[in-house]
């Protein structure tokens, strides 16, 4: 009974957190620190946390589709085509397709991960510094040249993102860099205000300016729900490819979230010849592609997290801290011999995936009513939630200032069509690519690199993506 309550509570909490613009799994997990010790049995805490991870990942589809605001940065890719569909009165169609894809991939990859967790160790071990470096480059090239029509502006946005990401500590000298003497910036610009400023605030301001609901959902929409199922069936290989991309990225330490979704979106664009509806204008394949990736990524990122205590994604780093509170030290031999722990993870993630999927499909009209609330009521609440999430860092005035600056950048980038995803990626991966380059140059010579087939394969893939991006006319207009 207690397990069911923990599961239900985690699912509902995760769904609500997922729906809050700018929140998502990472923010939702941070809030749990305040009450994690209240669980009478630590295994209930594990169930709750895993349910939050699963439910928030599915739940964040709503704000992306209905409001054009990503619940988390990873939901931004779904938003590109989901939001235009909602504006065309097909919100339930988009949500149905998104939730179905998300649920199927969550169950598929969740099963593969949690049943077979002990067998994945060797995969992590063959992916060394060169492969991680090449993979990070691939992600940057993909987001800049494939997911954007204006690649020159994409490159500029990427450069701006990289510059913002380089603010903080120089890994070479350990000294402050580009901080302008502001101590607060010594730890760099935080992800949450940047994501909120780039994506959430511009869309909120748009809504306020237009003084209208952003999407309308019919209360009797059974037909659209069926069409969503049908669309997933018709694009089943796309959905599974998206899941495979998400799963692959999730398994690599530190990579995750947005990268998986945008790469999956990129493959959806790249593999669609002569689309009936242009991407960025409401193509359902633009919803199914990235939605395949997000739950799969969440599931597989638990592999390095649980096996080595090394977070597979930002949310997993928080999860390690939460589990520490519950007396579970990830990455230890003791834990590997605790079947109840693995059962709790399996139970929490898998059942919450099913539960939230069913809940979303059955109650979309109810949940979608949030879109019908007049903006004058809606705006301060959303702004409050976003601000609340963004000022968790220090609570000082600097948090507000960074959010304001990032919001200005977001509004300008949106209006002048500079790719916000490229900017975000540049930001997220700038320190990683810099650090991996330092590591690569210290540890490997050229003759050692050419002996690594996965590295060579990834370099070739980068070349292919680059050539394709430069020579093919990309149809995506989202910025």
């Amino acid at each position: 009974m207690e397990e069911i309550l923990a599961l239900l509570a985690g699912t509902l909490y995760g769904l609500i957190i997922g729906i809050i613009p700018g929140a998502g799994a990472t923010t939702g997990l941070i809030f749990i620190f305040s009450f994690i010790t209240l669980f009478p049995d630590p295994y209930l805490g594990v169930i709750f946390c895993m349910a939050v991870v699963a439910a928030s990942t599915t739940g964040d589809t709503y704000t992306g589709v209905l409001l054009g605001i990503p619940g988390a940065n990873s939901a931004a890719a779904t938003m590109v085509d989901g939001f235009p569909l909602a504006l065309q009165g097909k919100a339930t169609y988009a949500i149905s397709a998104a939730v179905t894809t998300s649920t199927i991939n969550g169950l598929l990859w969740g099963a593969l991960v949690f049943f077979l967790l002990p067998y994945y160790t060797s995969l992590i071990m063959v992916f060394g510094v060169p492969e991680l470096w090449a993979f990070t480059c691939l992600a940057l090239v993909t987001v800049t040249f494939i997911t954007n029509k204006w690649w020159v502006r994409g490159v500029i946005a990427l450069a701006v993102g990289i510059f913002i990401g380089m603010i903080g500590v120089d890994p070479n000298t350990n000294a402050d860099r580009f901080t302008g003497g502001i101590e607060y910036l010594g730890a760099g610009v935080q992800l949450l205000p940047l994501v909120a400023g780039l994506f959430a605030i511009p869309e909120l301001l748009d809504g306020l300016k237009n003084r209208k609901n952003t999407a309308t959902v019919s209360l009797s929409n059974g037909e659209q729900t069926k069409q969503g199922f049908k669309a997933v069936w018709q694009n089943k290989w796309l959905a599974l490819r998206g899941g495979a991309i998400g799963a692959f990225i999730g398994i690599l330490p530190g990579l995750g979230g947005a990268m998986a979704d945008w790469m999956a979106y990129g493959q959806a664009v790249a593999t669609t010849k002569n689309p009936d509806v242009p991407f960025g204008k409401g193509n359902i394949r633009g919803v199914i592609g990235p939605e395949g990736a997000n739950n799969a990524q969440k599931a597989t990122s638990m592999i390095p997290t649980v096996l080595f205590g090394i977070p597979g994604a930002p949310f997993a780093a928080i999860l390690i801290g939460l589990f520490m509170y519950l007396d579970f030290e990830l990455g230890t031999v003791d834990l590997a011999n605790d079947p109840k722990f693995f059962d709790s993870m399996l139970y929490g993630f898998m059942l919450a995936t099913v539960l939230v999927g069913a809940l979303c499909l059955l109650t979309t009209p109810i949940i979608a009513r949030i879109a019908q609330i007049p903006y004058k009521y809606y705006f301060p609440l959303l702004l409050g939630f976003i601000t609340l999430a963004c000022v968790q860092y220090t609570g000082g005035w600097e948090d507000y200032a960074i959010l304001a600056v990032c919001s200005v950048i977001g509004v300008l980038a949106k209006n002048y069509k500079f790719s916000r995803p490229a900017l975000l990626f540049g930001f997220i991966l700038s320190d990683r690519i810099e650090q991996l380059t330092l590591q690569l140059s210290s540890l490997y010579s050229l003759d050692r690199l050419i002996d690594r087939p996965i590295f060579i394969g990834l370099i070739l893939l980068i070349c292919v993506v680059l050539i394709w991006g430069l020579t093919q006319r990309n149809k995506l207009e989202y910025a």
Partner: protein
Amino acid sequence: MKKFITSVLLALTLSTPAFADYTFVVPQKPGAGTSQWAEIIAKELEPFLGEKIVIKFIPGARDIPGFNKWHNTMRDNDKAVMVSHGGNGVSFLQEEVDYDYRQYDSVGLMNLNIIAGKASGADMNKPSFAAGSGMVPEAFAFTMLICGPDKSIEEYTACFKENVTWVKGMSGAERRLAFKRGELTGTRENPAAYKKHVAPNTKAEIWFHHGILQADGSHADDPNYPGYQFETLFEKRWGVAPSGDMYKAYKLVKSFRDGMQKALWVNKGNPNRQALVDALTAMSKDKSAMANIQKKVGKYDWLIGEAGNNHRDTLMTFVTTDALSSLVKFNRNALGLNSVEKIELALK
């Protein structure tokens, strides 16, 4: 416009943090190592203190801004307790910081040891090791082990550059994985993390440890890893005990990092200090509380109240102009760190 301003004010109200009885100021983000430690200690300490403890996280570059902020604006608050870690101690020696341990009273601190591991069978005369200011004591130790006695800082620098692959830009998680993959041949951890990340690895073994600082300023062998203290290994290999400028700098930096690995501070003369010390003393005698703490952070000795102050005073005796100068010289020229020479610390 009015609605917009109302909205913004509401948003600001929603995001205003709450206040509580005692505040533990932690210079890190939630979930980081010292943050977790502070959460656990606060939870166990609350019943003995009889008041609620809230954690205030003030993260920033190299965990300096939080400590600076407490020093400059919060320490006069009688209920604001600073939670520091070994990295703060290293920064105190070689970076421009506002905080100064001599101006505070210790509530309690944990005197730890750091263990270096190596890949079994690797040539540790040519090690590859993750760089960073947190690795400075290890770099000093293995440079002396590799290069031998009686050398100048310049000679040690040259020897380091010739023999060590110093891999910059690695986070703790990346370092652990790179070591497991064999890309790094050396790594280091605190005893709890060593047990978790290195000891179970069948392809790894202990390399050396730094020893545990004693009240008389010496370092004793770690009973968990007997015979692997740096000084013991050095003497075994080179036939003499380590000495000279490099060794003085090493002793200084390792002591400030490991000797105050986790510490609770209040401003000098804080009227609540005794209540905190009493609560910590009672907690340290409670088997259940200590079992909970040790389960999560390892079994380490506490130095409570005046013992903590005495420990700090012992550390300060290592701060000499020679040691500081040698530390900064090797940091800059060998390790590529942008360290600052703080001779004034030795003159105060």
